[in-house]
């Protein structure tokens, strides 16, 4: 291995040319190996979750056979149940039955949910977006136009009482 003194100028103080080289290197490296899109948003979300001190719900997956949408279409659905010490949540995801507005538009899904409390605040985080709903008197809620991706639900009891509940990630 060489020592620092064997390379010309290694002991010199940094100058403007060094600054120019490093700035150019920064530009090149940022283009060749960019920070993945959405990474900082995902980090901020994880930090928010960590700060919630939420209870993490357990996942019970219950795959169902697809249900018949109409005579010909076979609409796949999946029902998933999450349980916690305070609230439980069952969600069913249906692939959007309407065609996307244009071929360039990503298809969306409809999420039907049921919480073991009426008036619970439900927040769905998926693909860097969040969707809010409040369960009705029977604990039901519907969220439409949801993009596909890794999703997590945060539940708060009516009036925000008690610890929030966060589900593990599910693919929708």
């Amino acid at each position, binding site marked *: *291995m*060489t*020592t*620092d003194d064997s*390379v*010309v*100028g*290694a*002991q*010199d*103080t*940094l100058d*403007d*040319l*060094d*600054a*120019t*080289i*490093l*700035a*150019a*290197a*920064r*530009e*090149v*490296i*940022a*283009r*060749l*190996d960019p*920070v*993945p899109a959405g*990474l*900082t948003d*995902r*980090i*901020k979300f*994880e*930090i928010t979750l*960590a*700060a919630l001190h939420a209870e993490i719900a357990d996942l019970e997956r219950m795959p169902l056979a697809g249900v018949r949408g109409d005579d010909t279409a076979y609409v796949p659905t999946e029902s998933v149940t999450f349980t916690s010490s305070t609230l439980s949540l069952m969600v069913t995801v249906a692939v959007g039955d309407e065609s996307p507005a244009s071929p360039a538009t990503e298809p969306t899904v409809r999420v039907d949910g049921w919480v073991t409390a009426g008036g619970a605040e439900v927040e769905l985080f998926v693909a860097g977006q969040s969707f809010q709903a409040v369960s009705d008197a029977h604990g039901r809620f519907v969220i439409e136009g949801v993009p596909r991706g890794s999703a997590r639900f945060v539940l708060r009891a009516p009036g925000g009482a008690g610890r929030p509940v966060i589900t593990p990630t599910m693919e929708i």
Partner: protein
Amino acid sequence: MSTDTPVPVASLASRAAAAFTAYRLGDRDRMGELVDLVTPVLWHTARAQHLDVHTAEDVVQTAWIRLVDHADAIDDAQAVLGWLITTVRREAWRTSKQAGRADVVDEVPEAALADESPGTAATIDPSLLAVLREGQRLLWRHIADLPERCQALLRVIAFVDRPDYAAVSRALGMPVGSIGPTRGRCLAKLRVALLADPKWSHS
């Protein structure tokens, strides 16, 4: 960045410290600013340790969650940048070791990797080189020709400010070749190679 006499700018470490201090005093939103400021450096720290894109994302996320969990244990807010870089480096090492990589040693290496390694440039998808201008491709070739540890060092140093170089070199465990206040072996090698290349122009 211009080649004119540099206007004094706050270092990345100082800006990170300001956001972190405000966060600890209860302004929770400032954590988002800290994430935006420091994530690029952490990304390149992880990638310079040969992690693939997916693993690098996990490692960087883990470091941030550690920071939230240990926010009160950091005495000097000015040290938060170095703390995060060190955490990413250790987490990257731990992850690689778990994955059973043969070239990972039993201790967090002082200077990340041996000079003979294939080079951090090997983690770059070569098809991306097409997006570069000719001068940028030339610069990248010279970076890729550097010894492994120099590539790893420059890849991170390029994303911090000049007053940060010495502390960041230390956080990377790179006493040899470190940059700041002197040019150091790695940057000097790159500079010599560029100046000797008739095709290179820094205008």
